């Protein structure tokens, strides 16, 4: 008995929904062997702006959730990723041409990293903050807080691991995210969005755009409601202009990653997307 397959339509992920690009544009995505896989949405300036609006609207709720709560929600994503591992292994193989063993290893690592970051939600503030022994009768404490909306260029060479490795650290502290997926390998990012959509992550916390990084990134770099620009995967395009554009609104800029672009897990990735707030309070016995 033959089953005629039902191909998936890959769209954007904005505000918890899966809209097509408002521009109506798509681009062809091919496998490593050059076989047509799907048409991916070619996101426009309007899509990028919609994504920022969604991310901003979601910020207060996500940042205001307890670390314990964010930790459980992020952990749940790892559970769902585990459940869909076969799908991701197949997608990664199609997209990048690696062996089953290599693709399995990438999914394993993506799950492991996600759990590693999920565990930080109620710990990073303890490690990155501290009491300050000022010379006077004051209670004084410094704590890290999320920056706000973070726009991210995902690593280009990787279909899943790169994406996971840049989204997770931004989410730990309570940032919301607009991420531009790998231009070459965007399909797993949208499959990952299906996990996000069916998990307990509030809508708008993660927004995923597919398309041309060099077209979309300047809109995000110049957007006044984006607080930080993570250019980890932007080494392939003219990122210097993005940093120059970002200076107009004094965005925090993480320059392109060195080496493999695999965005090695580190506490520094979490703290780089936080602000330190210092609170003084007078002390008095009366």
């Amino acid at each position, binding site marked *: 008995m033959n089953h005629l397959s039902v191909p998936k339509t890959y769209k954007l992920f904005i505000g918890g929904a899966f809209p097509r690009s408002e521009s109506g544009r798509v681009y062809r995505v091919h496998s490593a062997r050059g076989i047509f896989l799907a048409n991916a949405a070619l996101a426009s300036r309007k899509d990028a702006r919609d994504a920022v609006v969604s991310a901003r609207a979601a910020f207060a709720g996500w940042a205001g959730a307890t670390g314990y709560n964010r930790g459980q929600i992020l952990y749940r994503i790892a559970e769902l990723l585990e459940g869909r591992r076969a799908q991701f292994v197949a997608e990664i193989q199609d997209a990048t041409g690696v062996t089953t063993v290599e693709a399995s290893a990438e999914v394993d690592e993506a799950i492991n990293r996600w759990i590693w970051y999920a565990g930080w939600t109620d710990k990073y503030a303890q*490690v990155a903050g501290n009491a300050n022994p000022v010379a*006077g009768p004051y209670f004084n404490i410094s704590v890290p807080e999320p920056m706000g909306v973070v726009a991210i260029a995902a690593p280009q060479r990787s279909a899943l691991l790169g994406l996971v490795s840049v989204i997770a650290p931004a989410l730990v502290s309570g940032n919301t995210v607009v991420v531009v997926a790998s231009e070459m390998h965007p399909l797993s990012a949208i499959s990952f969005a299906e996990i996000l959509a069916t998990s307990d992550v509030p809508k708008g916390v993660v927004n995923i755009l597919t398309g041309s990084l060099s077209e979309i990134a300047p809109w995000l770099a110049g957007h006044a409601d984006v607080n930080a620009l993570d250019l980890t995967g932007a080494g392939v395009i003219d990122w210097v202009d993005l940093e120059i554009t970002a200076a107009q609104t004094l965005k925090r800029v993480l320059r392109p990653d*060195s080496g*493999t672009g695999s965005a090695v897990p580190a506490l520094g990735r979490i703290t780089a997307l936080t602000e330190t707030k210092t609170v003084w309070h007078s002390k008095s016995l009366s």
Partner: protein
Amino acid sequence: MTFLDYAAAPESRALLTLRSEYGLFINGEFVAGGGAPFATISPATEEHLTSIATATEEDIATAVAAARRAYDTVWSRMPARDRGKYLYRIARLVQERSRELAVAESLDNGKPIKESRDVDIPLVAAWFFSYAGWADKLDYAGLGANPRSLGVAAQIIPWNFPLLMLAWKIAPALATGNTVVLKPAETTSLTALLFAEILQQAELPPGVVNIITGAGATGAALVAHEDVDKVAFTGSTEVGRSIARQVAGTSKRLTLELGGKAANIVFDDAPLDEAIEGIVNGIFFNQGQVCCAGSRLLVQENIHDEVIERLQSRLATLRLGDPLDKNTDIGALNSREQLERITELAAVGEAEGAQRWSSVCDIPTTGFWFAPTIFTGVHTSSRIAREEIFGPVLSVLTFRTTAEAIAKANNTPYGLSAGIWSEKGSRVLAVADALRAGVVWANTFNRFDPTSPFGGYKESGYGREGGRHGLAAYLTASGDNAPLRTAAETQGGVQ
């Protein structure tokens, strides 16, 4: 004669001996600058104090080369505890010469001697003393074992707290093993040059700290120098933007401490005696020329009239005049340019319909002065509620609910500081959580300490100065293999 009239009590200028001209401090020695020298004046009297050199691009290259040489051959190789000992020496010398430095600061900047003597200079010594102890404890900075210094730091500081800003920049840079080229503000170079003499007395190895003087172009050329690894700037948001553009695409690390428009929120259950003093300190300390000044007063509506009345009667007791007089509360503004900007913005406030009240005081006939001023009936859209005035001008807005106070406080592109006045602890903590500002003072204002991180959110800049967090601006984790790459290194290679 009222109880407010005091006999003049000027601090003696005898312990300050100024040279008729000052050169650049490069490689441990004063050398002539290549550019045209400029005069530095007392903003209180407009008298000529001394002549200051202008550094050219060649001078900057010499200074950066001296810093590089000192980094490579001496400072980065020295045992960490010895770096600390030099900083302790500096702290002690600042304490020994503190009165001289305070007099120089008040003369050159215009701030009251009681502020330079009791706040600025003691904090300078404290900053060096505190960071001295960090030099051999960097494994505990939070970046893992054996964090590395960056190299040559270019540091550009403003005129509002000249020597204190120098200390905020130089102390952590040296403690972490970097060498420095520092440019003080054009109008307030004097104490930096006296500090250079202190470095000579401390026998700091030549080139570890170089001080070059000049105007904005000198600073821009320093930032642009290709052998600079780190740029630290305190000043206006506009210049901060241009520096961020300048270093884009390089491997230079950058921290910026820029402008602010802080909300000082007074709830109706505030301890009003303290709050009035805190509001006054928040906006009139240093003539309001403070980036973290509490320039937007948000008062709960039901106590608005009482607060304004008490503020006005308190302000009427402030004495404006000779910065060197120990009774003076309000000194001179730093420059004519500053006076003109404040005057212009105050006129805008009136034109936009806010009600102006200024303290009645005798304004000296020479120098740059502005009477303490309060605007009431200010709207959130008014320019005096949105733009940094950087002067003794307080804009008063009202609110009814806590949520409204938070929304108004955060309604600014800046995010440097904020104040909260309330006796209800749970509300103070919840409001502090909700404010998007780097420093929140609750039932106090304008407190500074070398152990306490300072720096902004949003367009108030990035990075922190002070405390453990302040070390991160001058260090990189030892496992970090060039996380910040140049354009040339990344272009063309697919990741």
